[in-house]
């Protein structure tokens, strides 16, 4: 119909630069959030799998709370509501002194959100290690921490690689939601290019290609890791 295709916009200045900045921001936000998600999520997952009583209640509450509110809303709440609930000085610092508050907020919100999902996967991974393994570890006198460190976690880690791959992919995709609090990541830059040039489809195409490339690279990377750590003699899971 009446759409004037013009692929040149993608390589023109400043749009090419915007795309580049968008990709860089997407990568930076995602990777930083992944660091939070992985460390916090693993910790919560381990505690959740082993603990009972109050600790398990706390980790369970964390998982439920963060999984059951849309990320879009969480970003907003972290950005606008949380500073108002803090003591005035801290709130003001968050709002006015913190460099790049929107980026930091996005990373924290995305990290905490994804941590709840990682925790679920880690707990499931530990549960998937056959029960006999922890019995064998305890039978030989290993303490609970030693059993986790030397026996359960190394096996759970291998079990958890495939679901972690998809969580890692999801974090890239979810970083697009940071645009709602003003982070100029890839999707936001795409929209900006569209609103400047009205060549929306070209920009969408570029973004789609970039996301697919990221996905391909992440999948390849994780496959390599999976192969590296696979246990000799075991048939890799198809």
């Amino acid at each position: 119909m009446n759409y004037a295709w013009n692929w040149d916009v993608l390589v023109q200045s400043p749009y090419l630069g915007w795309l580049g900045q968008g990709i860089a921001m997407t990568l930076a936000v995602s990777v930083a959030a992944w660091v939070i998600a992985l460390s916090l999520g693993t910790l919560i997952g381990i505690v959740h799998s082993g603990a009972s009583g109050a600790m398990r209640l706390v980790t369970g509450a964390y998982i439920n709370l963060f999984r059951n509110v849309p990320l879009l809303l969480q970003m907003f709440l972290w950005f606008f509501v949380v500073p108002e609930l803090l003591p005035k000085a801290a709130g003001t610092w968050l709002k006015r002194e913190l460099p790049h508050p929107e980026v930091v907020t996005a990373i924290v919100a995305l990290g905490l959100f994804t941590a709840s999902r990682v925790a679920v996967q880690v707990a499931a991974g530990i549960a998937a290690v056959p029960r006999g393994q922890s019995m064998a570890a305890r039978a030989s006198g290993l303490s609970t921490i030693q059993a986790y460190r030397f026996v359960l976690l190394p096996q759970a880690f291998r079990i958890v690689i495939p679901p972690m791959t998809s969580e890692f992919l999801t974090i890239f995709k979810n970083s697009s939601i940071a645009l709602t609090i003003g982070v100029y990541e890839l999707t936001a830059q795409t929209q900006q290019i569209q609103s400047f040039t009205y060549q929306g489809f070209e920009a969408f195409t570029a973004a789609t290609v970039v996301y697919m490339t990221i996905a391909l690279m992440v999948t390849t990377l994780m496959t390599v890791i999976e192969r590296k750590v696979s246990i000799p003699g075991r048939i890799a899971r198809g």
Partner: protein
Amino acid sequence: MIRIEGLSKSYGDVPVLRNCSLDVARGEVVVICGPSGSGKSTFVKCINGIEPVQAGRIAIDGENLPSKPAAAARVRARVGMVFQHFELYPHLTVLENVCLAQIHVLKRSRDEAQEKARSLLRRVGLADKEASYPAQLSGGQQQRIAIVRALAMDPVAMLFDEPTSALDPEMIGEVLAVMLELAREGMTMVVVTHEMGFAKAAADRVVFMDQGEIVEVAETARFFAEPASERARLFLSRILTH
């Protein structure tokens, strides 16, 4: 050596062990048999405290099994345990499997642990497998490694839970041979098994369990010749006729 008094345990409201008592002397070999679900596995797991008990007392080598987990671990390390499905650590090599608890529980140096491991592996004829991973070995080989792993801790007694029932028939022999040798050397052993051939050859006494109770404890020869209880007789007839 091992003294168990009035052991009772239930999962929820289902009683699994009812008031079980048993004394095992130093160097004695005791075989436990009985129908499936009679509580044999639970019983041996309680002996070294992997399963918590609701009532009763267990003493190993004169030392009461403490109820605190950390203290129990120390006692537990003195009793070796071999499981039906071997439970070797699949992500570690054979040598690492045998050394892990030596290093982290007994605090042996790596060299010392490895030396111990190698000498035991040689004894069971698996010296050349130390760098293999469990999944690269046959079932019989895996079970022999599991026995080595337990022996490396210098246990005062060994517990076996159906060590051959997950094995292919041709591999049962090689594992039983290792167990027989251990028995001859005077190791204190409690063995849950259906291999009546092993029981006849190595056991001093046979314990027959049914529905969570120790129904009968008898000298091996007596047990096979004329079991005292009706239930044991029925069990033996079923298991020996085919």
